[in-house]
């Protein structure tokens, strides 16, 4: 392999695989957050039957591997093409975790504040969204970014249903360049940069939020 071949591989991953991975992460992230926060809030409110159904969903989420969900959604044609199948599978598998994080964070806020809100005759949703949620979001942020990192790594599984993101892009490059070690090391490098970046950002955010929460103005 010449130096030029290396350049071709990097360029292909950078201009093709990486944007597709990011496209997958973006759509799944938005949907995961919407469902996760909604379900988490519902579980926090402990609405009788809904709570049991969501508990079961959380159990299924934690028990079934992403790749099985991916195959199931794709082979059943629920999502149509590979892209939406992957988005649906990732959302299904990750929203359960976000649900648990959100529920835990909401419950971690001092519940006397809820009673104080009730004493002021504030509505239930107002208490949740304007009193509890702002404090809970600070507590939940590091865990949610941790989940986002798992989501980024999870997108690699979309390669098994034929969606050309970073991993699949690497596999396809194998037909032209036979050096599998080098290609997969480049692919790993891209994932590492993405995830490492998120970890560093998470640490930074955690630092800032803690300072904000304890009232230290920078």
């Amino acid at each position, binding site marked *: 392999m010449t130096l030029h071949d290396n350049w071709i591989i990097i360029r292909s991953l950078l201009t093709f695989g990486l944007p597709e991975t990011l496209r997958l992460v973006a759509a799944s992230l938005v949907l995961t957050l919407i469902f996760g926060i909604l379900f988490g809030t519902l579980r926090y409110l402990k609405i009788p039957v809904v709570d049991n159904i969501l508990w079961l969903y959380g159990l299924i989420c*934690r028990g079934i*591997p992403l790749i099985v969900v991916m195959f199931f959604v794709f082979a*059943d044609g629920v999502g149509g093409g590979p892209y939406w199948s992957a988005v649906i599978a990732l959302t299904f598998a990750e929203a359960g975790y976000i649900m648990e994080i959100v529920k835990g964070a909401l419950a971690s806020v001092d519940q006397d504040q809820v009673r104080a809100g009730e004493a002021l005759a504030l509505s239930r949703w107002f208490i949740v969204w304007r009193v509890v949620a702002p404090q809970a979001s600070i507590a939940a942020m590091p865990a949610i970014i941790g989940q986002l990192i798992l989501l980024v*790594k999870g997108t690699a599984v979309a390669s098994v249903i034929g969606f050309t993101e970073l*991993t699949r892009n690497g596999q396809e490059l194998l037909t032209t360049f036979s*050096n599998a070690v080098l290609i997969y090391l480049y692919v*790993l490098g891209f994932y590492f940069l993405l*995830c490492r970046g998120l970890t560093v950002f998470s640490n930074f955010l955690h630092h800032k939020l803690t300072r904000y929460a304890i009232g230290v103005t920078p």
Partner: protein
Amino acid sequence: MDFNFYVLRDNVGAYLSGLLTTIEYSLVAILLSLLWGAAVGVVIYSAFPLVSRISRAYVMLFRETPLLVQLFLLYYGLPNLGIALPASVCAAIALMLNEGAYIAEIVRGGLDGIERGQVEAAASVGFSRTQTLRLVLFPQAWHSVVDSILGMVSIIIKDTSLLTVITIMEITGVAQEINARLFEPTTSYVVAAVLYLLLFGISQGVVALHQRRRSHDTAR
């Protein structure tokens, strides 16, 4: 989108062998990653000059990249360097290195949680380094990390599903093969999902059992 019972009836044997394969790889992975993770965790904790730094880099690299690509690198990449390992060995190594990195981080956290004064105290009564580790640090660290380690068990079981991409016929591989043969996606994957849930239920049962025993211990 129908559940057809004949698919399950005709393939009970295949699913059972897949289940056994999953259990086999899970057990191997749990054992290897525990030993490896504990060793790496201790090395990072002990802060040996160069080795700790390398171990830290290893943990970071394996935690921030997908297991799937690590499997590909070992299985399809190593033959390029003249090292052709069978799929089963690649699977064991990849799981050991990947899950071991997480366990190393857990173990290091557990050891860091113990105050350094105890290490000094042990040294002052003449304990060697290994004695300090074995008699002072490990028993306490074990107590604080055991929940996280048990949590890793269900993650490891789930992660073995990725082994299907390197031709190992565990539950997911079997389901895929059955679907390819009969084109019954709903049934073949739902059965696989149920089998995984069964394993998950067992691992959760072990966790619950352990927690109950522990609450008895502290109550006494």
